């Protein structure tokens, strides 16, 4: 074989081998262990799983995380014992945009929103989805999206009523699955968006829906929205409708202290725990639990004294004192001393407190007394002297507000309630003015959490800095 032939053959071999190995498929390596976006959601079952993940993502924030934020800003909680810098910063009501706890929650509240919005792209593509399925799924999605925006606007914006037309900045409204930076909408626009979503949910949700959102859940949430907007008539209408439902007040005050394998009849909407490995109260336990460790956060003496001031109040067993009388004395909550539990989003207790207040504000003292006495009778068993009467008149509101604080401490309610009082309390039948929260004005800048730095763009305005003092 001569040299040139050899060169020809070897070169052919080389080129051939190059050609063989250049197949595109050698470079088309797809990830394993996950689904590619275009093949992940193709059946009605996939859609249900995607919707289910929205509940899961939401539950992971209402496991004590969201509630803790509300508590830290409030006058119920002492400076965090564990010195955690981010929680301390929230407690100080002076968050900055590097606070990863704050930024983390903010982002996680929008995760279900993205998922709900992404579902919109699948409805007309998936064979086998019935009209009823679509109607329900869309309604559940709107319900979840509303809750997320509602929670975000309560934490990251000044409250409804801060300005007369509520044109002050709220939070971004995300109604599409998009990564484009957008600006903050006004608080009025956010509330309108939330109301629209909830009204859609009410119109389309089934009357019962297992452990998922049903029409009463949407009505209860919307009632709470109206309550914070001080739209008392709308609130009352919805409350009456929900409370006509199958809910009964639990005999136990230990809403969180039960191994809840089912749903309490008191719960209008909750996130369910099935077992210790499916704990939906993890952050409650991690932060507040006081029987097995020193909790990360504890109570202020003021709330402890309030709850324990009457020896017949059985809610006293939900609080405790450690190192009593010593220099290092501190107060704790016992609400969450258990290994796992579900997390109640909205309960009959809260609805009763709400309707009692709305009724008292609107002159329906009879309903107000009836509702608040259901709470009182459970808290002070056998102590009829504690029960309210219509004779209290406007002072009934004082009692209702106090009972609300005793019932809902460490459930993240207090700050929003106080902000509402700040915004609308002066027009109450029992006017409240100059509302402060732990010595800070209800509308001070620091009571609106700061947005994360990564949200900042040329169109995005941060909250005012400077804290509350």
């Amino acid at each position, binding site marked *: 074989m001569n*040299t040139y032939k050899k*060169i020809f053959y*070897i070169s052919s071999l080389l080129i051939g*081998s*190059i050609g063989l*190995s*250049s197949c595109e498929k*050698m*470079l*088309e*390596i*797809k*990830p394993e*262990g*996950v*689904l*590619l*976006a275009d093949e*992940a*959601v193709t059946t009605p079952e*996939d859609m249900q*799983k995607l919707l*289910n*993940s929205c*509940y*899961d993502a939401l539950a992971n924030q209402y496991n004590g995380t969201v509630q803790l934020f509300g508590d830290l800003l409030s006058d119920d909680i002492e400076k965090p014992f564990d*010195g955690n*810098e981010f929680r*301390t*910063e929230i407690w*100080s*009501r*002076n968050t*900055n945009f*590097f606070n990863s706890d704050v*930024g983390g929650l*903010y982002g996680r509240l929008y995760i279900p929103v*993205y*998922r709900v919005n*992404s579902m919109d792209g699948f409805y007309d593509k998936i064979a086998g989805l019935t009209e009823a399925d679509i109607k329900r799924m869309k309604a559940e999605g709107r319900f979840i999206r509303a809750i997320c925006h509602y929670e975000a606007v309560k934490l990251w914006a000044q409250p409804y009523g801060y300005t007369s037309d509520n044109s002050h900045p709220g939070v*971004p409204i*995300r109604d599409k*699955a*998009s*990564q*484009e*930076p*957008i600006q903050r909408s006004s608080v009025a626009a956010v509330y309108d968006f939330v109301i629209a979503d909830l009204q859609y949910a009410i119109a389309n949700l089934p009357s019962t829906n297992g452990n998922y959102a049903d029409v009463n859940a949407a009505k209860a949430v919307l009632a709470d929205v109206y309550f914070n907007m001080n739209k008392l008539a709308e609130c009352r209408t919805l409350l009456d409708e929900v409370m006509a439902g199958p809910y009964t007040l639990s005999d136990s005050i230990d809403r969180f202290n039960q191994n809840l394998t089912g749903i309490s009849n008191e719960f209008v909407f909750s996130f*369910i725990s099935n077992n210790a490995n499916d704990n939906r109260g993890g952050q409650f336990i991690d932060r507040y639990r006081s029987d097995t460790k020193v909790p990360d956060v504890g109570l202020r003496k003021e709330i402890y004294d309030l709850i324990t001031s009457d020896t017949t109040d059985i809610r006293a067993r939900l609080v405790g004192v450690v190192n009593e009388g010593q*220099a*290092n004395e501190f107060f704790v909550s016992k609400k969450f001393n258990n290994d796992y539990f579900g997390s109640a989003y909205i309960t009959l207790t809260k609805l009763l407190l709400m309707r009692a207040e709305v009724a008292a504000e609107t002159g329906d003292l009879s309903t107000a007394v009836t509702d608040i006495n259901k709470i009182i009778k459970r808290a002070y068993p056998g102590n009829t002297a504690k029960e309210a009467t219509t004779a209290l008149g406007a002072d009934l509101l004082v009692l209702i507000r106090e009972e609300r604080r005793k019932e809902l401490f460490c459930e993240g309610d207090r700050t929003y309630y106080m902000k509402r009082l700040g915004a609308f309390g002066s027009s109450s039948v029992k006017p409240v003015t100059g509302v402060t929260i732990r010595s800070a004005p209800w509308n001070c800048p620091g009571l609106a959490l700061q947005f994360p730095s*990564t*949200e*900042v*763009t*040329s169109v*995005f305005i*941060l909250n005012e*800095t*400077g804290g509350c003092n």
Partner: protein
Amino acid sequence: MKRYLLLIFTLLCSTSMYAQSIRGKITDPTKEPVIGAGVVIEGTNIAAVTDALGNFSIGKLQPNTKYKLKVSMLGFQTIYREVQTNSTDVSVSFTMREDTKQLEDVVVVGYGTKVKREVTGAISKISAKELNDLPVPSFESALQAKLPGVQVTTGSGAAGSASVIRIRGISSISAGGDPLYVIDGIPITQDYFLNGNAGALNNNPLSSINPDDIESIDVLKDAAATAIYGSRGANGVIIVTTKRANKNGTSFSYNGSIGVATATALPNMLNSEQYLQLYQEAHENDGGVGLARLPNNISWDDARKTNTDWVDLTTQTGIKHRHNVSMTYGNKYVSLLANMSYGKDESYLVGNRFDQTAFRINGDYRISKKLKMTSTSSYSNGLNKRVNTAWAGGLGSAMSTALPIFPVYNPDGTYFTGGDNPVRIQELKKWQTVENRFLNGIGVDYNLTDELVLSAKGNYDYMNLVDDQYDPQLLLNSTHIGSATRNSRITKNYNYNLQLNYTYKINASNKLSVMVGHEYQNSLTEGKFKTATNMGNGFYDGEAKVEDSALYTYFSSENSPEQWAFVGYYTRLSYGYNNKIFMDATFRTDGSSRFGANNRYGYFPAAAISWLLTEEEFMKKIPVISTAKARVSYGKSGNANIPNYERFGTYANPNSTPNYNGTGTTFPTRLDNPNLRWETSWTFNTGIDVGLWSDRVTFTLEYYDRRTSDVLMQLAVPPSSGFSSYWDNVGSITNNGVEFSFVTRNIDREFKWTTNFNIARNLNEITSIGKYSEDAVSGGTNDTRVVVGQPVGTNFLVRYSHIDAATGRPVYLDINGVETFNWDPKDRVAVGAVLPDAIGGITNTFSYKNWDMSVLFNFVLGGDIYESSAKRQLGVVTNWNMRTDIFDRWQQPGDNAAFPRLTLETATYGSPTPWINTTMWLHDGTFARLRNLTIGYRIPKAKLQKLKIESARISFIGTNLLTFTKYTGLDPEIARDFENSTDRNMSSNITYLTPPQQKSYNLQVNITF
């Protein structure tokens, strides 16, 4: 078979049958024999190799004939001499002189070698000897200060830590910014984050490379040199060539060293009395009355009775020793090198050491005149006995949350658990990382003709990394006897290439060579995690589990595999004219699995020309200039070092997602970006290599300008979008700079003095980040950001102004420069850069008779150090111990002090949080360091002959002996643990309790038999 038997027979019988011969002895200028020198009679195949005494003999010669001998040896000038035979044997002697001609070195270029004379690109080289004189935990740190433009920041003092290497600055932000490492032809696995940063230590993929195996390291810097690596050359290429047998006969050598290691610096923390005094002062400054409540509710009585020196308890003098035995064998057909190494390297951190056992066999097989095979096989076992460092504990705890008022033990002898106790963790926790690595390759060269060579090579890099942790009952305070976890990763990385090399000498003046090739590389990483309770030991002890108990639990899972592949086609056309003008044109195209079909292939051309001016007549009129070569190149290279699947939008698999309400879930986990594409750099380079006075003085001056576009960035997207980040090609970066290096033989007599100096200045600038803000990409938690007009890794901080003399409070500047007590992150500005202004090194080498000494200083000019942990050690008084620097603090109105008044209240510092980043902790990063001092003595041959030893050298080697800096922290050379590639690119020179470098003293012996 017959053929091989004949070969072996020939080898065994290779004795001369002729009496007429030329015998001789070859020595160096110090009269030491030169072993292994080749002696060839020109124009014939008659040759010999000098033996252990430098002797040679060539027989079978004609009497009364004039022969021209050529004597050659790597590193020496070749000698040509005519020898006349007569009727008897002729004896001759030659003295070989060191070859200092800079243009005759062989350097490794991509997929081949060239003599430096013909090189057109910017390539720097370091040899085995220079590596040998610097005992380093990982070979790459031996490059420090040796090569211009190569910045090496050695890893921390923790055993097995990884260095950070930057070649001519950095062109990447989120894609890996490290150079590509190619060892014997394979781009090796170099994932620094296989284990995240557990224990504040990143994985060091280079630690398993045995420094004793390395023959040379070539660093390719400009596009002419790196473009042949196309897609992966943008941040430079480091080519490691391992040793091979290069002479006939058999020889053995032993290298051994023993040494001790300490820290370059240790912190001065407060003792108990000082801590209590200052804590109380802070309490009283804040208006507190009575005694302050101490951290962790420690009583004052107990605190006063305790004074624990945690720094002392967590540090030690580490012992290290290393041994290497090497054997080479060679004959006409086979050359073999076998290398065995064992080393034990204790760091100065108690409980921390890195052991390495390594084997290598490299072979060259000359099967026929046309067929040649090569093989490389290495195995390395690295055992890292781990301890927590930095933020994770250990010495880091001693510098922070382990307070002097905390005891190690309670009065009853049990461990104290009421606060941070690093001794308890160190003594109880068992943690080891074992890496087993095989690097194997085989190659075939077939000469199709004299001019045409076909080469085929295949390589396999197998890495098995197993991380085991065991926490016993006493540490966990558990009911079961202990828990074990194992995290294992196996990476199988292989490549092959086929290549044709054609060399054609057109005529006496024109030479042409063409190389075309194809390469494929594939890497697959799989991993498993398992954990169990009620274990008596870690998983490395198979008998440890106690299953017959309700306390035993077991969980295991497999990580999703990570796989990538590259397909490349490359060609290089080289042309030489009259041995003075050389041109290279290179083109490579690469396809990567990390990009979609629309952007899969990148195209990387480069062209370069060099002109050896001293070959021109007009230059010969200037005799002082012995060498002058000018070079220019321009070309493109790329970077695709990003996570493997970022182009895909993905959903979680319902089989592995959490349930809600007993029902499965699925959800989007990653945003897709099908348009991801290569990050590319165009580089212009020009340089001149000059030798004066017969190359007694040589210097190189280079200028380069690299412009990188489509920079790959992991961008933070607005969290309200439902995601936190995604990858995109955004923005651009420029690097330009100059490099200057020289070598001077200052004295070249019996006493020799050589100076080797290099300095490099790089200007780095981000020229665009698209529509994004500075916070779109951040260097971990280190407050470095991407700022247009500033370098990669810009310190973006609130400016600290001064201490208010009246109140002792710190005063800052707002965004407009107005003084304020309030710290607000919106007032951050670009105030510093982690990249230095200039880097370099100077080595002075002296020798006199059998003695030699080498002194290497490295230096860094400019750049900033951000001492991130100082804000906790010297700021608001918290549950951290403080450094004694805090003695210089404001105490009363009018004080002029280094630090503000002590306080327990963060508001005093104008912030709700105590941990605020300001320029108070930003320092000039300039330093110079006595990196290496070596004093060696070569034992005279005469004294070794009785022992049948060819050569022996004993040396003392000290590393990091002295540091000159104004930096008040521990160590100005900082490579902290990193969270990801972005952090690694942007946050070098930022310290957060980072263990300082190691200072070591070593005694080394090198013996050849």
